[in-house]
């Protein structure tokens, strides 16, 4: 079940993440991080420390932004980390937030990233509507 705090409609963000998971069956879990590095919505199970997960995701976003700066770029638009345990994928949102997803090691990562990029617009729209209210 998704949880959130901050800007945007809870139900709408939950719906977008649920749609993404339904579309991309390889996704095991997904989350939305705001530009202020707050965990707005996530599909984590009970017992998962939300604050800890949010902090780890924020650390990854900050690291990728640091690498971007070191390489003379404005920002990172996509991050893919392949490990033996699975894949962690991040797609940047307008305003510096991120849409994140985890998959198993055998996932079709290219397809998952494609679906995440397609869902990005919808997440951004929900966040923009939430901040206008």
């Amino acid at each position, binding site marked *: 079940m998704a949880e959130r705090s901050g800007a945007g409609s809870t139900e709408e963000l939950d719906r977008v993440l649920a749609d993404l998971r339904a579309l991309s069956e390889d996704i095991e879990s997904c989350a939305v991080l705001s530009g202020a590095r707050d965990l707005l919505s996530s*599909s984590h199970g009970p017992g998962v420390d939300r604050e800890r*997960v949010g902090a780890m995701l924020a650390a*990854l976003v900050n690291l990728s932004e640091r690498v971007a700066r070191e*390489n003379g770029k404005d920002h*990172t*638009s*996509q991050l893919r*980390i392949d490990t*033996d345990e699975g894949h962690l994928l991040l797609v940047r949102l307008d305003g510096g937030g991120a849409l994140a997803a985890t998959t198993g090691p055998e996932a079709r990562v290219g397809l998952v990233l494609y679906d995440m990029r397609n869902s990005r617009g919808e997440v951004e729209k929900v966040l923009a509507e939430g901040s206008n209210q």
Partner: protein
Amino acid sequence: MKKLLRRLFLLGALAGAAYAARSYLQGKSPGKETVQIVFDDGSTRALASNTVEGQEFTDIARKILEVGL
């Protein structure tokens, strides 16, 4: 001469097969962790996990994968 060429060809084929098998096994072996970053201008940067920079990413990713999002 013809026999020598045939042996050389056979040796080359064997070496090629051995190299292909080694590459295949390395590709499947555990410990192959990579980080790929795509920047806003479309350029990419790959970091191997045996670099300090790459390890920072993979360490955090492993923890997140352990608990889920």
